[in-house]
Each structure stands twice: as structure tokens, then as C-alpha cells.
């Protein structure tokens, strides 16, 4: 059925199955990578908003997770761009968006918004960690017998201080101020970065499912939900790993007399997770309310497109929307977190479900929006390419998506070597 003549397979043909009357040029052009794009930007924005809760609003209970999510947000940043690059048919021309932006387009400003946001996060990290950079530089410089690795780190830290070696009270105070300032302008920019991803979809007037002014707001809320959920999940995993290492004294830091005890780690984990989970719940309620409002509104107003949308939402995609997205991804975690006697373990399970739910929401928007023809007389089915047989089915298939998911963790691992995401003793503001 699918012709494999080299060069003759049209983009989208490999994973689109058409049913009834679909226009000849219609395919599922925006596939898994475009599902990943809002998902990853959502995680970036959400992680940053979580860290800002401490830096701006002074929610001191979130002190530790704030630092963690700030670093994690930075690790996620390059990954927000990755799915777009993997999706482009001409990836080497991607830079044209920055070179010749065409400002009537909703995606032309992506590079600008993205870079602004990247500089804010990088700047904030620098101010948070400047003290650490200086201390490490001094410590390594004072070390009499430096190994090759030490010299390498010394070079990195020296560069990272940018020559600002002053650590007196006044300059540290200035750092605090700068962090607060950057975090507070970072919130609107993070929301803009993501709301803007929503606008990219919401403003496509040709697509009956996407076109709603609620789209950016829905995207922001679900972004914060997914970002917080991922931060809780990674934080718990990291804390568990640290507890494991501390118990067996396996890591270098664990032998340090100042190292946190297992009880301290456990206590911190309990309180941070409990607090963050509350914020997760607030945003989940907001996101679900908006999404359901949108659906009810469509059903109630019953404009021309409703006939086909009803068939997609209530029949063809019923399982994906109501069972997987709302059932498994919203209702179940909500119950898990609302039941009395909430534990870290239960919260962690809930966050995994929430992350899955938000992913399904992105899927149902992006793929669901292309599940019906512009003719309103036919349907398209998306078959995710699993085993890649060429570059295109790799990029826009399961493995391309997995590459995108794995990258932030790899980056985080490297980043954590230079900017430790966990507090040690009484440091940090």
C-alpha cells in the first residue's frame, strides 16, 4: 500500500492512513516531534515557575527543590528546540528563523523568545552559583597537588566566575537582588514561551480543533503541571539515590563529615514533596477546568465543525482522551494526592501519571487536530513509526522521541558536575 520508491514517498505518507474522503495533499505532517515540542517547552517553563516560587515569592519550604528545578530547567532548555530541528525538512536552514524572521508568523519569534528565556535562566544560575564558582576556584587553586581533572575543573570554574571574585557581604547581597529580579521577569517570559507554543496552534484558523483563544492558557497551565510533576519525580529519584549512596558511603561527598545524614535527606524530601504536591494540585485543577470548558463550549455551540469533532473526540479518540488523558492522567493522580495520609511514594506515582496525562494531552491536541480531513468528510490515522528504516522514520518515530526525552537527563548529569543542584550544609540564600 505504501510505495517505497526512493524519493517518491511523500512526507507523512509513511505514517498516515486515510479513511473516507481526505484531500490528496493531506497527511499527518505534524507528528511525534511536534507532540514533543510543547511537551518539552512545557517542562522547561514549569520547572522554572517552580523554582521562582521560592526565589520570588519566598516560599522557603521550596528552597531545595527550587535550586534543583532551576538547574533542571537549564538542562531542559536546549531540548525544547531539539524536536523542532528534528522535525524540519531542511534542518540546516533552521537558522533562517533568526536571520530573516517574518514577524507576521507566530513561530518567527520563537528564536528570540527562546534565547531571551535562555539568557534569563543562565543569568539566574550564574548569580545563584557565583559564590560556589568563586569558592571552588579558590579551593582548587589552593590545592597543592592538582590532578589533571582538578586543573580542568579549575579552568571551567575560573571561566565561570567571569572575573567577579568578590565575595563580601555587599556583593552577595547584590547577587540575591539579581536572582530575585531575573526570577521575577523569568516567570512572564517562561509563561510567554509556552503560551506562545499554545498560540502557534490556537491561531491556525484552518484547524477546527486547534482554533481557540483558550489554547495558550490551557498550554501554560498544563505546562506548569507537567513541569512541577517532573521536578517532583526527579527530585524524589535523586534524593532516593543520595540516600542510597549516603547509606553505603559510596559517593565521595558521603564521606564528608558535613554531609547530610540520611534522616536529614529523608526529612527534606518529605517536606519539599508535600509542599510541591499542593502546588501541583492547584495547577491541575486550573488546567483541567480550562480543557473541559473548551470541550463543553464546542459541544454546546455546535458550529459546523462539531459534527466531525464529535466523532473524533467521542468516538475515534475516546480512549486516548477520556481514558488515558483524563482518567489515568488527571482523575487518578488527583484522587491519589487528595486521599488523606499522602506519602512521598504515592505522590511520586501520581506525578508519573500526571506526566503521562500531559503527554497524552499534547498528543490529543497535535495528532487529534490532524485526525480529521479539512473536507470534514474523512479521517486520518497516525501510526507511530517504531522500527526506523530511514532517517525520516527515525527522526519522526519512537526513537526520535526517546532521544529527545533522554537528552535532558544526560545534560543534567553533566551540568550537575559543575553546578551542584543540591544544598550542602547552610549554603545558598
Amino acid at each position, binding site marked *: 500500500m505504501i510505495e517505497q520508491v526512493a524519493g517518491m514517498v511523500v512526507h507523512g505518507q509513511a505514517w498516515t492512513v486515510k*479513511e473516507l474522503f481526505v484531500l490528496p495533499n493531506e497527511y499527518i505532517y505534524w507528528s511525534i516531534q511536534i507532540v514533543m515540542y510543547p511537551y518539552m517547552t512545557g517542562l522547561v517553563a514549569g520547572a522554572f515557575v517552580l523554582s521562582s516560587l521560592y526565589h520570588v515569592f519566598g516560599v522557603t519550604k521550596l528552597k531545595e527543590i527550587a535550586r534543583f528545578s532551576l538547574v533542571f530547567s537549564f538542562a531542559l532548555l536546549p531540548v525544547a528546540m531539539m524536536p523542532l530541528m528534528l522535525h524540519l525538512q531542511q534542518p540546516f536552514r533552521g537558522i533562517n528563523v533568526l536571520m530573516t524572521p517574518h514577524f507576521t508568523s507566530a513561530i518567527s519569534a520563537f528564536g528570540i523568545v527562546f534565547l531571551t528565556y535562555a539568557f534569563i535562566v543562565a543569568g539566574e544560575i550564574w548569580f545563584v552559583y557565583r559564590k560556589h564558582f568563586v569558592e571552588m576556584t579558590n579551593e582548587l587553586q589552593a590545592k597543592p597537588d592538582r590532578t589533571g581533572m582538578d586543573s580542568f575543573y579549575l579552568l571551567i570554574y575560573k571561566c565561570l566566575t567571569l572575573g567577579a571574585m568578590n565575595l563580601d557581604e555587599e556583593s552577595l547581597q547584590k547577587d540575591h537582588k539579581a536572582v530575585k529580579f531575573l526570577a521575577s521577569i523569568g516567570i512572564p517570559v517562561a509563561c510567554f514561551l509556552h503560551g506562545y507554543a499554545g498560540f502557534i496552534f490556537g491561531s491556525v484558523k484552518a484547524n477546527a480543533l486547534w482554533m481557540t483563544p483558550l489554547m495558550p492558557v490551557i498550554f501554560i497551565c498544563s505546562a506548569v503541571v507537567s513541569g512541577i510533576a517532573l521536578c517532583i519525580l526527579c527530585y524524589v529519584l535523586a534524593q532516593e539515590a543520595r540516600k542510597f549512596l549516603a547509606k553505603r558511603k559510596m559517593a565521595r561527598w558521603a564521606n564528608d563529615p558535613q554531609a547530610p545524614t540520611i534522616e536529614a535527606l529523608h526529612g527534606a524530601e518529605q517536606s519539599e514533596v508535600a509542599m510541591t504536591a499542593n502546588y501541583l494540585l492547584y495547577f491541575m485543577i486550573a488546567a483541567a477546568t480550562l480543557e473541559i470548558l473548551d470541550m463543553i463550549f464546542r459541544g454546546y455551540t455546535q458550529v459546523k465543525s462539531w459534527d466531525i469533532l464529535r466523532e473524533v473526540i467521542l468516538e475515534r479518540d475516546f480512549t486516548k482522551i477520556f481514558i488515558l488523558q483524563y482518567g489515568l492522567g488527571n482523575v487518578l493522580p488527583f484522587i491519589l494526592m487528595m486521599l488523606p495520609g499522602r506519602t512521598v511514594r504515592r505522590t511520586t506515582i501520581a506525578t508519573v501519571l500526571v506526566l503521562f496525562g500531559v503527554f497524552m494531552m499534547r498528543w490529543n491536541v497535535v495528532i487529534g487536530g490532524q485526525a480529521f480531513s479539512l473536507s470534514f468528510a474523512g479521517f486520518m490515522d497516525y501510526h507511530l513509526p517504531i522500527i526506523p528504516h530511514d532517517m525520516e522514520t527515525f527522526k519522526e518515530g519512537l526513537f526520535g522521541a526517546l532521544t529527545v526525552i533522554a537528552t535532558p537527563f544526560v545534560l543534567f548529569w553533566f551540568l550537575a558536575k559543575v553546578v551542584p543542584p543540591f544544598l550542602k550544609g547552610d549554603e545558598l540564600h
Partner: protein
Amino acid sequence: MKRRDFVKNSVVVIAGASVPLAALDIVDPNEVLAANEDIHWAFLLDTHKCVGCGFCVKACKTENDIPFEAKVTRTWVERYVFTKDDRRYIDSPDGALYGYTESRIALGKGEYQEIDPDNVGKAFFVPKLCNHCETPPCTQVCPVGATFKTDTGPVLVDKTWCIGCGYCIMACPYGARYFNPIDKVADKCTFCYHRLAKGLETACVNACPFGARKMCNIRDINDPVTKIILNQRVGVLKDEFGTRPQAFYIGLAQEVR
């Protein structure tokens, strides 16, 4: 001069010079010639005359080097069959590249539906192509400005600049755009811009044996085709999107979307 001063002065000179230099636009004579106030191309399709032979699709693919095997097309013909018991069937296998030689309707997924000729209420063909809208949503959303509306009407794609994001394909309410399987960029009907420039008509107009497709300069009120558009009741596709299509239809049925 100190290095610091040198850098400072250089910045001032560059910034100062760039303002007046930006005013100088390099004028391309071809661009000036192409911008003709008196020409605005429009298309007229008569659904009563179309028989679904697919010559237009063949001519278009041949003229514009779109492989026959590629399952995308710049122009296509749709078949509508409404039965007396109010069942509606629409199909367009391969965009009608090989014409409608069979009476059964393609339902996709390799399935077909045979329809009893006595049960047919009404049936007709609708040729389609890019509408070269007055306010095209596709050019609006291009992040790099690789697709644009020319001064004489046709909407074109610069295939050396398109990044292949697919946003224009998503933005088109008519499904007129697709990814060219060879160039890997967005592609669409150009109203045969290269032929118009030589004073020829489009390949599809040229190939249509029944005069179902016609082209005109809508600014020229003496043009016979323009007269039809101005004097008769013609319709456009999906006007609710506010795109102001420049392809006009005679005998447009409300079921055609």
C-alpha cells in the same frame, strides 16, 4: 589610539552608516517589471463542464515536474455522488491523475463502494487548486518569509529559503500545499507563474478539453472571463475563513468544502 577607543569609534561609525545604507534597496529590474498594477490573476472553474478526465492533473504534474508516483498534487479533481436515499460519497483517487474511469467510489484503506446508477440523485466533479487568496493565511504564518504573494496575485514559495516546518501546510484551509518529495520544501500551485510571464496560459487551462478551467486578469473588465466573474453568480470555497480566494466557481454546491 587606544584599543578601547578604536572599538568605540568603530561601533559609532558602523551604527551611523547602517541607517542611511539601509534606505538603499537594491532594485531588481525583473521585480519592477513583474509588479504591474494593471494585472491581477484570477481563476474560474465551471463545475458543470468538468467531466473528471484528469488531463489537468496530468498536465500540471508534467509541466511542474511533480512525479506521477508522488501522492501529492498541485491540482486535483473531486467526485461527489449523492444517492436518492441521501448518502454522500466523495473521492479523489490519486487526485484524479488517471481520471475517473471506474464508477465505484474509493473509501480509503483500499476499500470501495459500488453505487447503483438508478439510485444516484446527483453527481458532479469539482476541480481544485490553490486559491491564491487575497489574504493568504499560508504566507502570514511562514516564519522566514519564504512564501509570499506576488504583486500580480500568485502565491509562490522560495524553495531555496523554505525551512520545511510545515506551518503553511497546516494554515491552508484548502489542503493546497504539501511537501515536495524531491526538494523537501513546501510546494503548491503557482498559477504556472513561469508560463504567465511568457504570456501563456496555465498548463491545466491549456489541457482542459471542456473549458472547465479558465484564467483571467480580473483588473481587465473587457476580458471575457472577468466578465463572467463580474456578471454571473459565482462562489468561492470556504469564505468563512476570510481568505478571499481568487479561484471562482460556477455551480458550487454547498457540500463542497
